[in-house]
């Protein structure tokens, strides 16, 4: 069967990697157990042995493995990031997902045979930036930031001819990715250098007056009533009091879901669909990958689309959005 679009699944653990492969992912992305990747949560991620075993499992079933080394090295401390790229190459990964210029240069010079994908953390959203990364470091694929409309995605691909991967499902960040300092300001740990937004040790929940109240450090981020969906207290999804009105100031706790836009994204020249959620469970991975696999196979075969109601149940906040893909304003 002709592939409609490549399906790229997250894997926060070896068990999630197996779940993704078994559910029909074309590619899986994962990271190491340190600050070299943007999902550095306690107990999550892979060590070198996990990655070797995971790559063997995936390759044995025709699935590719990408390794995210997509945070920015701390000043004077590039060692862990270089080691992560070396370990990914040694394990037989199919690509590394990079954001930092220095690490792109390192990978291009030390592992020229290893594909380099540009992470969304690099926030490259103009033809000039994309051409720079492609021509200077031989970047083969770019993961486009989640701030573009479908028309803008199409224009970028047409202009640069780059292989593009776009987010298809999962949690949303806000503003320009890789350049958010809200969590750093509130917790002292940086999403871009430590790989963790709203670190678990700073997150707490309390029940107060019948409401679930979430805190990031000492800052209250939200309070939800008994019948309301709960959410993570990430700073961009906090509910703030603005001019006397309590509302989500930056971003609402919703999940991206582009299923109704798949035909448009394919027409736009997109190569791959990325599912967000390395911090989510293997049950989430299996559910989302299976749903998208069913949809993509049905589209490829020209068959009626299967029901995907299960996706809403696992979406952040229990709600879905097209996000910037369908926004008319800029």
């Amino acid at each position, binding site marked *: 069967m002709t592939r409609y679009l490549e399906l790229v699944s997250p894997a*926060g653990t070896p068990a999630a990697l197996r779940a993704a492969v078994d559910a029909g992912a074309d590619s899986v992305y994962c990271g190491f157990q340190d600050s070299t990747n943007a999902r550095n949560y306690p*107990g999550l991620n892979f060590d070198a042995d996990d990655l070797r075993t995971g790559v063997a499992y995936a390759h044995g079933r025709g699935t590719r493995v990408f390794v995210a080394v997509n945070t920015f090295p701390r000043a004077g401390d590039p060692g862990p990031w270089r080691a992560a790229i070396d370990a990914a190459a040694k394990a037989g990964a199919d690509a590394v997902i990079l954001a930092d210029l220095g690490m792109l240069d390192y990978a291009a010079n030390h592992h020229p045979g290893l594909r380099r994908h540009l992470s969304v953390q690099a926030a490259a959203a103009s033809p000039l930036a994309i051409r720079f990364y492609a021509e200077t470091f031989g970047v083969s694929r770019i993961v486009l930031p989640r701030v573009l*409309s479908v028309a803008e995605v199409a224009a970028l691909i047409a202009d640069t001819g780059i292989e593009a991967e776009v987010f298809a499902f999962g949690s949303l960040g806000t503003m320009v990715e890789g350049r958010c300092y809200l969590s750093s300001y509130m917790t002292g740990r940086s999403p871009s250098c430590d790989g963790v937004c709203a670190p678990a040790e700073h*997150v707490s929940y309390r029940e107060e007056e019948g409401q679930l109240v979430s805190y990031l450090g000492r800052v209250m981020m939200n309070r939800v009533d008994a019948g309301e969906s709960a959410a993570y207290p990430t700073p961009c999804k906090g509910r703030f009091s603005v001019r006397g009105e309590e509302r989500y100031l930056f971003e609402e706790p919703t999940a991206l879901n582009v299923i*109704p836009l798949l035909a448009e994204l394919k027409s736009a020249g997109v190569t791959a669909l990325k599912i967000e959620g390395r911090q989510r*469970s*293997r049950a*989430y991975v299996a559910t989302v990958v299976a749903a998208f696999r069913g949809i993509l196979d049905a589209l490829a075969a020209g068959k009626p689309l299967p029901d995907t109601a299960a996706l809403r149940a696992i979406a952040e906040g229990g709600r879905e959005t097209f996000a910037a893909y*369908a926004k008319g304003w800029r």
Partner: protein
Amino acid sequence: MAETEFPVLLAGNMLSLLPAAFTTRSASLVLRRLERQHPRLFATLAAHPPAAIGIEPTDLPHRFLLRFGGHSLSLAAVPHFTQTPNAIVRGRLAALVALLEGRLDSDAAFFARDIIVTGNTEAIVSLRNALERDEVDLFASALDLFGPGRRMARRAMLALERGLAFARRRAVLRHEALHAERQEKSPLAAHCARLEQEFHALSARVSRIEVLARRRGQIGKAT
């Protein structure tokens, strides 16, 4: 993923009847069995800084205190927590077991308020992620305690579970039949249901219009 679904009705009934001390003893035996089957999981938890997680099944009389880290691990049934645990997770026994076995997405259960988490999340995130790495089958581990009688115990438990599920369904139907005549339909609920239907119809219509408009280039372009 676990191959069989945990017989949660049977377990709930048994745990409701058994004294806390017996439940603690049984939990220790199951933990010891799990430790042999999942050495890496237990090594990870042992290496964690000492933490205590309170587990409150809302459909059981017992609470449980899970202590891990500092090279020890224990699970005890307690009437109440003498000291505030680092975090407390509360939900129905079925949801808690499904989380333990990785059959349920913990974030989705949290968003939907099927489970409530309070306290500091660091220890609970570590525990969740450690459990996610290993595919724990709690029912299989509990059955192992029966030794050579494992298969027979499994058959008996699943038969009892089916019986309990059947009895529960009948009780629910009988309850509904008894109260059907006395139930007055709330005009507000009917109005809300109607509004919800209209909302869904309008949402679907707006989505279709948006897709058509984008195709015609009326929206979605940078301005």
